[in-house]
């Protein structure tokens, strides 16, 4: 449909009413027609019951008419329900379509748009604001049609009963139509003032609370109170005015709708007394009058929904009514396959504010040549790289890739030929594999771009130096018996081999699962059970609710101790983390997760008010739950004294004996010959947990494990598992170096003809940086053209050419040795460094 092709920001709100909803809207119309009939039918039945059945004392007629009446009421209710279902369906479908269309539009907008737009504005527009217009779309046809038809049907029926009486009783409505919008307008104006004043009011409260120490320090309570009093008074006044107008709208509406029955009583009563109107007709008239109120009220409310929906929709679309800088895909040809020669001619770039960042840039690269852009911060290196990559829209001059002007290329042309690694690469929520394939997937299928194979991916991981990291993610995975039955057997063999060859020398870095020692890097639950549950209700997360386990804690005297420990952990953690946002970095060393914090804040408050002894059972459950999760090696806000460790260790033996007797087989106790499914692959191989996270420790463990995995030919299997590791929002579970390596790997996997790297290795250590540099020289030189913004000058020797930039200009360009020999700007820069 043509409407669907138009950008959402150019579409009217009404275009959504039928677009994609046509058949649902027709179905709705049919149901509405039935519904209107079912609303009028009872009126006629009322009349006949009074005039015929009651007057003529005919019971059979009474039963027949009552049956019709009941049938109409049931059918009417069913119709109403169906109408609501369809309205909801249309509203939600339209909301989904609006969200998709708006999101698709927004992500194509120029980068300059986002420099001036807060992410929150976009989120609010898509998540909240579109809900209001979509509600209107849901009822845009049904509400006015059904209510107008109902009104019309009632009016026709009334005229059919008695034209004079109908005309007089309906005369009140036109007056209401004139007066109500006028009052509504005033109410809207007052509402706007109320919203503005409320913002000021909130701002004032926030300011006072943040500066409360100043108020205390100056004893300025009176001053603050008087400032606050004035605002309260203003707000009170405007709220009264707003409320009065709202009530005026309501009362006026009520008044006019109530006038109808009054006129019917006066005139209808008179006519009935005079014998000119049947009593049954009068009853039907009164009923119809009363029923007129509902559709009328719904129409008035609909008017309000329409106004809100229109204003919100128009405001949202106006805000995002910005043209993308470049078309997304060519209309009449496949994406170009460009030769990667690069020409930049008289290039200039100005910011929106008219500040010149690039001036008369000229350079030329043959396909496969490598160029390093160097210079001080602010010299324009990144700006130039972004202009070449079409991320900045240059103001003048030319940038040509393979002879094609970049400003005339579509985004698809660029994606197919150019790979960009930005200064702060963005890693999206998802698995390592998804992020690795991000750039390749974006162009896969376009003009024969193949999807990389697993071998390609593993090769790139090796080249970039991410292989060991991904291996580590794989090693930190929990396996299940159902999906990896064969693998776990292999891992037991790996464990044996590992223990034989490397066990002893890693004891500084690993806390081995020792039946006779308290494990500081395992939770209290793990320490007590020293095993993995084979039944769900004995899993670590369920133990605080497991009756058998609770009885054991009571009888062994551990219950009160653990409750105290839980209380202490709650108080300390809430005190430290209580006001922090739910970011992973704050909760990695906490016994409670970010989403549990609000509940534990309530428990901490209960603890403060009532004390531990008077705490309600659900709160005590939470304390126990937390205590069982406590891992002294990780959670440092509470200490676990030696006497408590001894108690727990003694309880481990007692628990094992008791469970083996009462519930044999319910726990698989840690044993060197069994795989522990509650532990990661790494912990299974180590038969323990790592104690230290220093690079030295990680390196030592990784090296030894890799050696054994290679021997058992398991290395790539574990890496494949590691590729499913979820990197968290914005890749927060990765280090800065890992994020940067991942960003480089995803572009390398795409094998672009032109590679743009904007300080792409700044977060890498020396070894990794040298590895990437070496890779560029051996694998990419003569194959892909490279424009690299480089900060570290010790890495630029082997670039074909070096351009030194200063204040938006290239002040010198040539090979490294040539420029150094010239003793110009590069010589100066290298000397400074």
């Amino acid at each position, binding site marked *: 449909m043509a409407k669907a092709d138009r950008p959402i920001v150019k579409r009217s709100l009404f275009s959504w009413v039928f677009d994609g909803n046509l058949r649902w809207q027709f179905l709705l119309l049919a149901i509405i027609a039935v519904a209107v009939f079912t609303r009028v039918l009872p009126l006629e039945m009322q009349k006949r019951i009074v005039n015929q059945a009651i007057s003529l004392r005919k019971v059979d007629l009474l039963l027949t008419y009552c049956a019709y009446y009941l049938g109409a009421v049931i059918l009417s209710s069913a119709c109403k329900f169906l109408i609501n279902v369809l309205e909801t369906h249309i509203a939600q479908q339209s909301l989904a379509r609006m969200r998709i269309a708006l999101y698709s539009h927004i992500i194509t907008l120029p980068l300059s748009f986002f420099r001036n737009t807060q992410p929150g504005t976009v989120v609010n527009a898509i998540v909240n604001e579109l809900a209001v217009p979509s509600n209107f779309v849901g009822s845009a046809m049904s509400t006015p049609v059904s209510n107008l038809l109902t009104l019309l049907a009632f009016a026709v029926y009334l005229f059919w009963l008695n034209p004079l009486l109908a005309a007089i009783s309906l005369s009140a409505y036109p007056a209401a139509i004139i007066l109500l919008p006028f009052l509504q307008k005033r109410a809207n104006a007052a509402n706007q003032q109320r919203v503005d004043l409320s913002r000021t009011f909130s701002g004032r409260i926030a300011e006072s609370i943040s500066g409360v120490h100043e108020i205390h320090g100056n004893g300025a309570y009176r001053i603050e109170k008087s400032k606050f009093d004035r605002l309260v008074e203003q707000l009170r006044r405007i709220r009264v005015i707003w409320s009065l107008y709202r009530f005026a709208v309501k009362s006026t509406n009520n008044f006019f709708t109530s006038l109808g029955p009054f006129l019917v009583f006066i005139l209808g009563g008179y006519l009935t007394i005079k014998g000119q109107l049947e009593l049954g007709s009068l009853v039907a008239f009164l009923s119809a009058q009363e029923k007129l109120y509902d559709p009328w009220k719904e129409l008035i409310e609909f008017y309000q929904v329409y106004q809100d929906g229109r204003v919100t929709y128009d405001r949202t679309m106006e805000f995002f009514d910005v043209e993308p800088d470049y078309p997304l895909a060519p209309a009449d040809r496949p994406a170009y396959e460009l030769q990667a020669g690069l020409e930049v001619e008289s290039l200039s770039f100005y910011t929106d504010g008219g500040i010149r960042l690039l001036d008369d840039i000229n350079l030329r690269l043959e396909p496969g040549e490598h160029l390093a852009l160097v210079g001080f911060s602010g010299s324009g290196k990144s700006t130039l790289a972004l202009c070449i990559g079409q991320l900045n829209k240059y103001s003048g001059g030319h940038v040509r890739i393979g002879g094609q002007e970049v400003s005339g290329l579509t985004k698809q042309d660029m994606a197919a030929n150019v790979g960009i690694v930005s200064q702060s690469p963005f890693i999206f929520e998802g698995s390592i594999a998804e992020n690795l394939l991000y750039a390749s997937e974006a162009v896969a299928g376009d003009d024969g771009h193949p999807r990389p194979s697993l071998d390609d991916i593993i090769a790139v991981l090796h080249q970039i130096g991410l292989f060991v990291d991904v291996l580590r993610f794989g090693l930190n995975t929990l396996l299940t018996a159902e999906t990896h039955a064969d693998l776990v057997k292999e891992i037991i063999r790996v464990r044996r081999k590992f223990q034989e060859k490397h066990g002893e020398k890693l004891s500084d870095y690993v806390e081995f699962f020792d039946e006779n020692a308290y494990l500081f890097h395992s939770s209290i639950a793990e320490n007590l059970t020293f095993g993995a549950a084979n039944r769900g209700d004995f899993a670590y997360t369920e133990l605080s609710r497991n009756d058998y386990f609770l009885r054991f804690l009571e009888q062994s005297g551990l219950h009160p101790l653990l409750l105290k420990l839980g209380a202490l952990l709650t108080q*300390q953690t809430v005190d430290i983390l209580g006001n922090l946002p739910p970011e992973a970095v704050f909760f990695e060393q906490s016994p409670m997760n970010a989403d549990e914090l609000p509940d534990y804040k309530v428990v901490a408050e209960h603890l403060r008010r009532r004390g531990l002894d008077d705490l309600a059972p659900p709160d005590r459950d939470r304390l126990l739950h937390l205590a069982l999760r406590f891992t002294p090696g990780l959670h440092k806000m509470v*200490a676990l004294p030696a006497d408590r460790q001894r108690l727990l260790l003694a309880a481990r033996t007692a628990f094992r004996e008791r469970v083996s007797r009462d519930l044999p087989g319910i726990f698989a106790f840690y044993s060197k010959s069994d795989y522990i499914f509650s532990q990661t692959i790494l912990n299974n191989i180590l038969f323990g947990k790592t104690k230290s996270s220093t690079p030295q420790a990680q390196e030592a463990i990784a090296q030894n494990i890799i050696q054994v995995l290679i021997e058992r030919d398991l290395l790539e299997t574990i890496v494949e598992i590691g590729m499913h590791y979820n990197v968290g929002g914005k890749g927060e579970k990765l280090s800065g170096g890992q994020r940067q390596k991942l960003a480089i790997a995803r572009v390398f996997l795409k094998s672009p003809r032109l590679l743009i790297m904007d300080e792409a290795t700044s977060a890498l250590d020396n070894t990794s940086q040298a590895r990437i540099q070496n890779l560029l020289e051996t694998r990419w030189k003569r194959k892909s053209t490279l424009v690299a913004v480089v900060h570290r000058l010790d890495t630029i020797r082997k670039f074909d050419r070096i351009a030194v930039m200063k204040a938006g200009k290239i002040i010198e360009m040539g090979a490294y040795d040539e420029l150094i020999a010239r003793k110009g700007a590069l010589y100066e820069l290298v000397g400074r460094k």
Partner: protein
Amino acid sequence: MSSLDESSPTPSCEYQENLDILRQTYFFSGLPLESLKIFAYLCTREKFKEGDYLFRQGEDDGEAFCILSGKTQVERTAGEAVLPIRLLETGAFAGGLTLIGETRRLYSLRALQETVCLVLSREKFAKTLDQFPGQRPRIFRAVVAAITDWEERFLEGMAEASCGGCTAKLGVSLL
């Protein structure tokens, strides 16, 4: 409440100890308790064996170290030669500037014996300060004071020992 009071946070818990140490470290000592508590919680303790590097010259590891026990040596590599600069022992704090901004190490720090450190990463530091933007100036003030103090002591030391042509390179506090 009584049952809780008798087992209130034991003074020996690591978090409490970290808090005490940070309060005595110039970089953190000016901060209010609300943010200090979070830094104390986020710090980790790491043990380095003799010969291990805490950080290496030329790398941006983004970590600050407070030495709790042991002995380390600051070294500068020039070509093949490794020049020992000075020793950092128990109580020393190294890496405040690393926490503030990305910078490559000009020196390596190597453990001369088994050394235990309190370690805080730039990411943890930055994310915590994001919660208390008003406290950034306090950190900057502490750093400015430390740089000035360092150069002042250096200048005073120069009165006793001549440093040849090094006077031309003085003036780090003028930056």
